[in-house]
């Protein structure tokens, strides 16, 4: 099972200790039952709810949250109640006035809104699996994409310059580079080549709105990752069409057969 820690190394509140569910169109129930939540007198529990067109913060008294309980939250102000997500934070105000997050939950999804609640394995983990053994690999060691190829086979140099190999992998290389740019959002000021890559994928159909939106999400959830994958596939398809990949392959086959 994946460890429940966030990117800063903080242990997250286990998902089974709290939940949100719609009672009806106008009310939501928040339930909690913590096993090891530590609070001090200065800490606060904040439940943040968000949905299309709305965002709300609800402060839960510390003394109430230590015992199992539930609360009903009115959704009168909400434009859309489907797909509401939540996040519980335990916050402590420092002497400098900064509100530090001591502990937090994973994203809470409505228990009775299955379309929004489905979970899956992180695509990033699958994608970046170092154990993957392949004849070619796209690496980003120096902040820019580099295509590495295996020389295991005797005919490797011929393979990598062959039409069939190039027409097969180049669109996917383009897809992977797009994925890297949109998920890593590398600093353009550190490497001028990165700007050229951005320019290239913008020419291949990435709009400014899409770029802003997709790179703006630091903690990318499955929904956003799926959108990124889809956009990268579109970019790769445009690349393939622009460079007549299929035509080149077809011509090659015709020549071979002729």
């Amino acid at each position, binding site marked *: 099972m994946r460890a429940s820690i*966030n*990117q*800063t190394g*903080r242990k997250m509140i286990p998902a089974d200790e709290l939940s949100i569910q719609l009672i009806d169109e106008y009310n939501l129930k928040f339930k909690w039952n913590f096993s090891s939540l530590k609070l001090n007198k200065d800490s606060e529990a*904040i439940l*943040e709810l*968000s*949905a*299309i*067109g*709305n*965002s709300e*913060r609800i402060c839960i008294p510390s003394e109430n949250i230590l015992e199992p309980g539930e609360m009903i939250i009115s959704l009168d102000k909400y*434009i*859309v109640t489907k*797909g509401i997500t939540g996040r519980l*934070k335990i*916050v402590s105000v420092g002497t400098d*006035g*900064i*509100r*530090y*997050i001591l502990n937090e939950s994973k994203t809470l999804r409505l228990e009775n809104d299955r379309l929004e609640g489905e979970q899956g394995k992180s695509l990033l983990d699958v994608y970046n699996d170092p154990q993957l053994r392949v004849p070619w690999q796209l690496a980003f060691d120096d902040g820019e994409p580099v295509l590495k190829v295996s020389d295991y086979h005797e005919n490797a140099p011929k393979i990598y310059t062959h039409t069939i190999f190039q027409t097969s992998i180049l669109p996917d290389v383009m897809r992977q580079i797009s994925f890297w740019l949109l998920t890593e*959002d590398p600093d*353009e*000021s550190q490497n001028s080549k990165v700007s050229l890559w951005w320019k290239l994928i913008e020419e291949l159909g990435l*709009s*400014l*709105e899409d770029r*802003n*939106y997709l*790179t*703006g*999400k*630091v*903690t990318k959830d499955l*929904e*956003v990752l799926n*959108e990124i994958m889809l956009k990268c596939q579109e970019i790769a398809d445009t690349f393939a069409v622009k460079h007549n990949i299929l035509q080149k392959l077809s011509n090659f086959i015709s020549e071979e057969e002729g």
Partner: protein
Amino acid sequence: MSHLKLKSIGRFNSLGISKFSALLKLPMQEVLSGTDDLTRNPEFFESIPCEMEIHPIESRLELAEILHKSISVNLKLKKLLSDQGMWSWLAAAWMPALFENSPKSAKIGEQARWILDVQKTRYYRHLLAGPYFIYHHHLPHPKNALSILGGSAIVPGELVGQIAASSDIAFSVGAEVATILYVDPKTGRPKKGSGGAGPGSPRRLTAAYLNQIDLTVDYRGMSAKEVLSILPKEFDKFKIT
């Protein structure tokens, strides 16, 4: 001049949405001339009594004010705030007014600008629903969100694109922080140099700062002044009014 006083507005049915979607794929002049028929032909929509004045506007804020004035007093419309048919009809009806006196860069653009995409990750792109939702959320002080309400309604601009794309920021004190940093209080327009991706830019504020500290700091529970006080030095140049 595109000036209309409506006694009722429409709510596209599925045929109306389908026709509008097909129309949006045509060249701009054909789209502009085609919306008139689409918003008048009762075959394509259901009519809802509602007084609304449509005329050329200067900003997303002005547009949101007009929409709010009509919607807030109408019980039926309040229940249709996430309705694709209503927002799409409104967008079609407003289209000629939005293009009037618009910047040269104005274009029809992607479908989500006109037909409300009810996905959580795209709805804000709608040219009418986007500013309306932001305005509604930031009441009674919508001008605090001028960073995402101040742009042209038809060409929202990079500042709007950056801030509105992150709903955690757009629907929190983050919008006010962006307003203080990037909007000139005298003109209501973006400050010089607030575009791009360089140090102190809106892109840095969202992707490289607020979305990062969100893991350790509950900035959404702090005042704009408090958030400004913890920003790195790269933002100092924009703190000066």
